[in-house]
């Protein structure tokens, strides 16, 4: 270290101990280290301030009453400022979803894995296309449900089936099933 800091004059060499380390080397390392730790300490809050703030996080769970949804009907709710689709599947739609061999699926999941036990007819998904985040059509009566009778994203043409699974188009994964639980027989809490 001694040769990297300052010029080695006879005086400074004399100031070095037997091991060739001068007091100034210690001061240099200590100062730069302290400044480095300080810089990291400043950068962390600068990065962290960009993450969702407390009020945004406070709105991060939503309760939905699912009792009034008729088979074949979908309601749109809002979860974390994004659309949430809650769909009551008809027996035909359940059958269609269960008939598909898993090998055909891009993101293999069964309908049972995507619904809660005992509520096979209640499909809760985000209304956010997994491609680039558009809201798929098919939740409102009369909208295009795509080639597989579920949802269809008009932005880049992703088709989802009745279990909200990606079947055709650029989206990489199935419509996200958010974490939720039944707080009673008719109410779910999402988030």
């Amino acid at each position: 270290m001694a040769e990297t800091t300052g010029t080695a004059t006879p005086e400074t060499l004399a100031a070095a101990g037997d091991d060739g380390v001068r007091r100034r080397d210690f001061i240099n390392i200590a100062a730069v280290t302290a400044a480095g730790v300080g810089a990291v300490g400043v950068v962390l809050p600068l990065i962290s301030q960009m993450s969702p703030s407390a009020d945004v996080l406070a709105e991060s769970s939503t309760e939905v009453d699912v009792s009034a949804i008729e088979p074949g009907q979908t309601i749109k709710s809002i979860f974390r400022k994004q659309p949430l689709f809650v769909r009551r599947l008809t027996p035909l739609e359940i059958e269609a979803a269960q008939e598909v061999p898993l090998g055909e699926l891009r993101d293999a999941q069964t309908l049972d894995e995507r619904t809660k036990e005992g509520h096979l007819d209640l499909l809760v998904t985000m209304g956010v296309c997994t491609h680039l985040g558009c809201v798929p059509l098919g939740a409102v009566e009369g909208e295009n449900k795509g080639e597989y009778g579920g949802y269809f994203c008009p932005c880049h043409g992703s088709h989802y089936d009745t279990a909200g699974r990606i079947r055709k188009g650029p989206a990489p994964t199935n419509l996200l099933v958010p974490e939720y639980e039944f707080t009673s027989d008719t109410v779910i809490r999402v988030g």
Partner: protein
Amino acid sequence: MSFPWAKQYEPATGLTRWLDERLPLPRLVYNAVGAGYPVPRNLSYMWNFGVLAGFFLVAQIITGVVLAMHYAADATVAFAKVEHIMRDVNWGWLMRYAHANGASFFFIVVYIHIFRGFFYSSYKAPREMIWLIGVVIFLLMMATAFMGYVLPWGQMSFWGAKVITGLFSAIPLVGESLQVWLLGGFAPDDAALNRFFSLHYLLPFVIAGAVILHIWALHIPGSSNPIGVEVKQESDTVPFHPYYTAKDGFGLGVVLIFFSLMVFFLPNALGHPDNYIEANPLATPAHIVPEWYFFPFYAILRAFTVDFIISAKLWGVLAMFAAILIWFLLPWLDRSPVRSGHYRPLFRKFFWFGLIPCMIVLFICGGAPAEEPYVMISQIATAYYFLHFLVILPIVSAIERPEPLPNSITEAVLDKDTNATAPIAG
């Protein structure tokens, strides 16, 4: 650096002499864009577009600072604030239309500037650094324009922000958290709008700084020229002022006629009508498109539809960024010693009948809905785009036999009149 025959700055008055000894700012200007900067005498109008880009940068900063005085980056009022500017603020409509169309014109002149560089190989030694900084400026422009488009908080603003930040979610493992971090929430909202406003105000000044570096790097070797033969003697150059200040001034006048036509008669022609609908997180517009100047890159993004090792989405994102980052490699991909396309018969054919049609096709596909035949056409055009830069350009530059070059700019201008070495105006 400059050529030895460059005119020296002579302070004319006592005041400028006093200033020159303390802060030689007039000397700097004189040597940068005044009579002290010798420039090749044969520059065509294709060499106007750097100055034009500089003009639009300044125009965007001025109109933008004015708009910021009347705007508020709050999701509940942002949309109304834009209408407030349009209807209530004195001359607000003019400031906003000039700013919106100014962005389009900034991109038009920069695209011409870049393609001028492609044709005349302006990126070649010793001008690589000018080119590299230029690509950085273009990337900064894209980021700035994207964030500016979000501020009116219309439907296209919102969904554009969602789709573009959604690109980051394609990154494996960290993508989802990265998108949430960028937005400061789970979807574009107040947090995103505010940070975009902050950065939209900041980045133009970063661009201005990069422009200074761009010009600084340019002044080391001096400007390139349409025949691509370097300056050899005094008779090859004329002083920037008054020759090119006049030529650039005339070009600026012509461009401002077209700019005025757009601002006063077709102010919304380049925008999207859906952006006059307030942002609604629960309803996607039928057909999300970016601003027109992003169409070619948007087409490349959407050209990837099949998963291969990584997801199609990630391929699209990587290809879109690669389409621009590839420009950084141009000085080393094109190895021909000849610069100008005028003397490169094969290169010239691939430029006019390869790259240009490819860009036009990508432009059309980027604005079209994501359905056939546009998807397949954009896949072919995307393949050609990368093929052009990575394969065709290196091969052409290796096998091509260039046409004979003039010995000097003077010779080219005076049609081989070798006696004419005295400086001639014009």
